[in-house]
């Protein structure tokens, strides 16, 4: 489930410690813990926790940290300090280690699995439970996994699964898309404890959650770049619902793209890679955004050093004003005056005027620019850009 595709990145993935803070608000037992940041004094924090046997866990947004030295154990302050330093210095599959969570080590008798998410075919939430939880849950056979479909309008779940109702309330009241406890530990003492927490919040519900003040992050698990932070700001404030221009993911390639519309962006990214070019970024604007928003986005996209080309592409718009959105791009081109090749393919309302404005801009800035309309398919213009770059 990669939600940023084709639309808005509607998933906000939380770190384990953030998830556990939410869990405990809903009455789900979590281990005693302290959070370590890079600047913290680990020995002080260890003593503050007051438990001899601890586990230290890297706070990253993806899983598999257990298999990548992201989880270490300690029984003394010195060991804890060493472990924390090791984790902070490590690279867990390219993920940024935001913090280290130091917790009491549980006496594990069994590891269960419990989650709630949306089932797209049934179009309703589903609770998934298994008594065989832990790292290899995806390999557990179907008959050992219990699924219970839930009506979003029900307030109680009729179930004796531990924490089922607490997790359901958490799912609903937090506007989550995924809540997962894996493992849900049964301790030797006979208690159930959420040893891990994975929560994905629904960003579309932000307006009813004034409490969502989380540290910056990207869908990719790394810290956002300066450009990504700048782009995100474009959609903030009173213009939030006036079209979208705040989606930008910086990548390793050298061809900048500026796409319009979610579906077209996906088709175009695929086409770009098919012709052998490497995207420098993924970005799209959609929903007829005002000129100013497009200008800001274009300017940031063009600010990247080392670009070899720019591809501006979109489908045949329904109601996006081509001349108006082009004007935003033109404002940026007038400032930056790129020397690398530029290929444009776009159609829709006001396309003739848009093309005229763009051609004038190319002329006055002496740009190496080719512009096409709907006489040619989007993907075909990627090949045009390849030719221009190779010349």
């Amino acid at each position: 489930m990669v939600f940023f595709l084709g639309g808005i990145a509607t998933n906000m993935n939380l770190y384990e410690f953030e998830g556990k803070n939410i869990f405990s608000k809903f009455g789900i037992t979590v281990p005693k813990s302290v959070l370590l940041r890079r600047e913290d004094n680990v020995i002080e924090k260890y003593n503050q926790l007051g438990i001899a046997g601890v586990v230290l866990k890297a706070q990253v947004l993806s899983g598999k940290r257990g298999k990548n030295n992201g989880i270490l154990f300690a029984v003394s302050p010195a060991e804890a300090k060493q472990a924390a330093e090791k984790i902070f210095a490590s690279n867990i599959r390219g993920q940024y280690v935001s913090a280290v969570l130091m917790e009491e080590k549980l006496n594990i008798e069994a590891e269960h699995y419990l989650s709630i998410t949306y089932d797209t075919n049934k179009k309703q939430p589903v609770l998934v439970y298994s008594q065989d939880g832990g790292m290899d849950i995806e390999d557990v056979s179907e008959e050992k996994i219990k699924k219970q479909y839930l009506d979003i309008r029900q307030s109680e779940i009729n179930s004796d699964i531990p924490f089922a109702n607490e997790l359901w309330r958490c799912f609903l009241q937090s506007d989550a898309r995924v809540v997962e406890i894996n493992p849900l530990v049964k301790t030797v003492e006979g208690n159930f404890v959420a040893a891990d927490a994975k929560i994905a919040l629904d960003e579309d519900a932000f307006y009813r959650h004034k409490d969502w003040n989380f540290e910056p992050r990207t869908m990719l698990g790394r810290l956002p770049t300066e450009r990504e932070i700048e782009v995100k700001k474009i959609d903030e404030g009173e213009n939030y619902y006036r079209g979208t221009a705040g989606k930008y993911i910086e990548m390793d390639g050298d061809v900048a793209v500026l796409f319009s519309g979610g579906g077209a962006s996906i088709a175009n990214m695929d086409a770009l890679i098919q012709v052998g070019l490497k995207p420098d970024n993924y970005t799209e604007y959609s929903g007829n955004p005002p000129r100013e928003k497009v200008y800001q986005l274009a300017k940031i996209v063009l600010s990247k050093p080392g670009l070899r080309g720019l591809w501006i592409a979109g489908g045949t718009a329904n109601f996006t004003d081509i001349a108006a959105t082009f004007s935003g791009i033109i404002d940026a081109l007038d400032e930056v005056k790129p020397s690398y090749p530029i290929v444009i393919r776009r159609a829709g309302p006001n396309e003739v005027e848009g093309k005229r404005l763009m051609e004038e801009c190319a002329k006055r800035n002496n740009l190496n620019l080719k512009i096409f309309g709907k006489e040619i398919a989007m993907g075909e213009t990627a090949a045009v850009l390849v030719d221009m770059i190779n010349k």
Partner: protein
Amino acid sequence: MSILINKNTKVLVQGITGKEGQKAAAAMREYGTQVIAGVRPGKGGEIVEGVPVYNSVKEAMSAHPDISTTTIYVPPFAAKEAILEAIENNIAIINTIVERIPIQDTAYCLAAAKEKNIRLIGPSSLGYISPGEGRIGVVGGPLSLANEVFQPGSIGVISRSGGMTNELSWQIRKAGLGQSTAVHVGGDLLMGTTYADLLKLFEKDEQTKAVVIFGEHGGGYEFEIVDMIKNKEWTKPLAVYIGGKFANLFPEGMNIGHAGAIVGKGQSAEEKKAALKSVGVLIADTYEDLVTKIKPFA
């Protein structure tokens, strides 16, 4: 013939006094669709785009009991209430253009609609168009563009993307073909009306000889098509494009937890394509290839 809409369809616009609602009412009327009433609490008695405005759906329905389709043009935070109001008043088809509705609200509306057998198209759906019959929402854009892109024909169009509904329809037109009905189903994770729901209608529609789908990753909707074909509920030619191969460039870390993998076991893009191929669906590598693949059957 056409699906979902014809010349007699009577349409209500909820949120007609807003900028988007007005634009949509004008676009529909311009294309010959009968928009006969609008709703906006507190603005009852006004006239917008030549259409009377009522304070509630109930008032609109008692004045115009033949309304069969409503279109929702309200802000995301008001969408749930507006959709539920339409459901309470038993309007058979609800087209929701609203984007960024919280998924929980969508799920709530879908549960309520299902109980009454009401069809919800969207959320995030620009609407649908049956060339020569009418359109719901703004699909196709201004009249001159809509007439350039759309003409009656034998190809049904389903798209997860609004822009691509138009772009794909244009490629069909450019190939000398026409469309029976083109539907933008919306790109949200939860789709009110799925590919399978529409294929059921296209199967019965004599005008439609073949269908193209512009799909996206996310959800297991393609597997419903596989089941339909196996059950002989869908028997016409079908070409599908599923975008998003480039996502392989990103680390897999974007999935959170295992819940998605367990609920959607066997639903990766490759598995989807293989399953569709095995029941005879034509798989297009690019969107323009959809038209090449389907043209012999038009």
